[in-house]
């Protein structure tokens, strides 16, 4: 009788993170393993918690946009925009048309650069370095356009209560769309690698499965939810200019890592189409209305669709220049239960891939 046949060893607990090569941000998991299989995962968050929601009590409500933009460096513009929308709702301010369309433009630009960033990181998580570099090279062109139109590479800094702070002229916008034309071809080429390459399929197909019912019951959002077959996209709410744009949520049904890649690849293509439409229909006029005085007493909440999923902003004003409460419910926070579900049953080597497929943004989650 070999030593193998003796009593099976009990479950092993392996700490994963906070400093880990595949994670750009610190996140800690206690993984419970039976042999090579993960049977349980307990996430621990808090490494990025700064407490910026409390800052709203110290800053002027118009200046706080700068802090809101720094909730996260990847979807910074949308965070700024969400805060502005929530405050504008309390103030009862109507944003000018051109500002609405510019906000849509920058939102979609951010979605493209975020998804490209994710495609690279996900490729890196299963050791496909070449694909990582190719995705990020394509992303640089998108970032250049963001810098030219908004002034910032990752933190755009163009959100403003009452509109936007920058007004790129139509000629610049058209030139920018021309500049990112080659990126679309490059992404189609990358998509062929993602879809056709057997090594990629081997690492992603059937890994980290979340069923439609589980995704819905666990409150997953964004690509995580849509990859499991639930047709829900907060952009269909029609905020900013989305009500006047034709688009349909990208939905996949397989619910595995591959499906999440396909949803994001589809969304990049969709975002390019939206960008085209936005630039073509961009109305003329002012980009901001002046905001004066104190905000009235009241509260409001706003939902947006970020690259990672639905985000919710809540603002309560007490009638002074310092707001009373600001709360963000971020997509990664909503996706963590579904991620824990997806990790169960995979082998240890697949854990980085599964964690990366929800596109975790820890600085959003912990604020």
């Amino acid at each position, binding site marked *: 009788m070999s030593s193998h046949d003796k009593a099976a060893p009990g479950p092993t607990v392996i700490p994963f993170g*906070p*400093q*880990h*090569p*595949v994670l*750009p*941000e*610190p996140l800690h998991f206690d993984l419970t393993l039976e042999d090579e299989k993960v049977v349980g995962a307990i996430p621990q968050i*808090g*490494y*990025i*918690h*700064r*407490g*910026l929601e*409390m*800052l709203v009590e*110290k800053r002027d409500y118009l200046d706080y946009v*700068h*802090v809101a933009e*720094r*909730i*996260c*460096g*990847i979807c*910074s513009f949308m965070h700024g925009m969400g805060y502005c929308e929530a405050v504008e709702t309390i103030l009862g301010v109507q944003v000018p048309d051109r500002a609405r369309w510019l906000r849509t433009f920058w939102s979609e630009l951010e979605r493209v650069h975020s998804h490209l*960033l994710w495609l*690279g*990181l996900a490729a890196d998580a299963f050791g496909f370095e070449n694909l*990582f*570099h190719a995705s*990020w*090279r394509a992303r*640089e062109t998108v*970032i250049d356009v963001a810098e030219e139109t908004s002034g*910032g*590479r*990752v*933190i755009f800094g163009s959100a403003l209560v009452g509109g936007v702070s920058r007004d790129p002229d139509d000629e610049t916008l058209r030139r920018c769309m021309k500049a990112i034309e080659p990126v679309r071809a490059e992404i189609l080429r990358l998509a062929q690698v993602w879809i056709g390459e057997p090594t990629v399929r081997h690492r992603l197909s059937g890994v980290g499965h979340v069923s439609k019912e589980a995704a819905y019951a666990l409150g997953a959002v964004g690509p995580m939810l849509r990859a499991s077959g639930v047709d829900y996209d907060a952009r269909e709410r029609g905020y900013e200019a989305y009500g006047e744009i034709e688009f349909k949520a990208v939905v996949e049904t397989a619910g595995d890592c591959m499906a999440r890649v396909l949803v994001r690849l589809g969304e990049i293509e969709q975002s390019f189409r939206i960008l085209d439409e936005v630039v073509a229909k961009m109305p003329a006029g002012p980009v901001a209305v002046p905001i004066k005085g104190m905000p009235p007493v009241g509260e409001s909440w706003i939902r947006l669709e970020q690259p990672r999923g639905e985000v919710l902003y809540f603002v309560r004003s007490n009638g002074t220049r310092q707001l009373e409460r600001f709360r963000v419910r971020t997509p990664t926070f909503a996706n963590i239960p579904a991620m824990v579900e997806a990790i169960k049953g995979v082998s240890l080597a697949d854990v980085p891939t599964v964690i990366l497929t929800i596109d975790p*943004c*820890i*600085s*959003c989650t*912990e604020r």
Partner: protein
Amino acid sequence: MSAIEKSPWLIHYDASSCNGCDIEVLACLTPMYDAERFGCIVTGDPKQADIFLITGSVNNLNIPVVKNIYEQMPEPKAVVAIGACAYSGGVFAECYNVQGGVAKVIPVDVYVPGCAAKPESILDGVVRAAQILAEKKKAMRKARRAARHAESPAQEAAK
């Protein structure tokens, strides 16, 4: 130029930043900015790293992690604090859960400005850190020689 200056290995840790500087650090490693042309390789293992790229204002939970990574790195080592947060806490300086700067936890050699820091300035910071590494190595050698000399001056003189 010493070997360590030609090929410094990097380790990156996000000590509660907003992610903006971190994705710019990653952008430095990709084809557009390509830190590898300075001989840099990113490693996940602190024991193999020469330069510590750290972003963010360091929150309370992060203090032991940052210290742990720093202490595991072999001498000589250099720390590059990236972004306004890593310098003073930046926009989060008044938050209740931040230390307000990396220097409050570990010694810093190079500060990279910006919110978010641009890849060009991060690369500049890395190159400066590599020079500092070379100087530190030289100083270490000198100290070692002096120590040897103090132990057995006669033998050293015979050489």
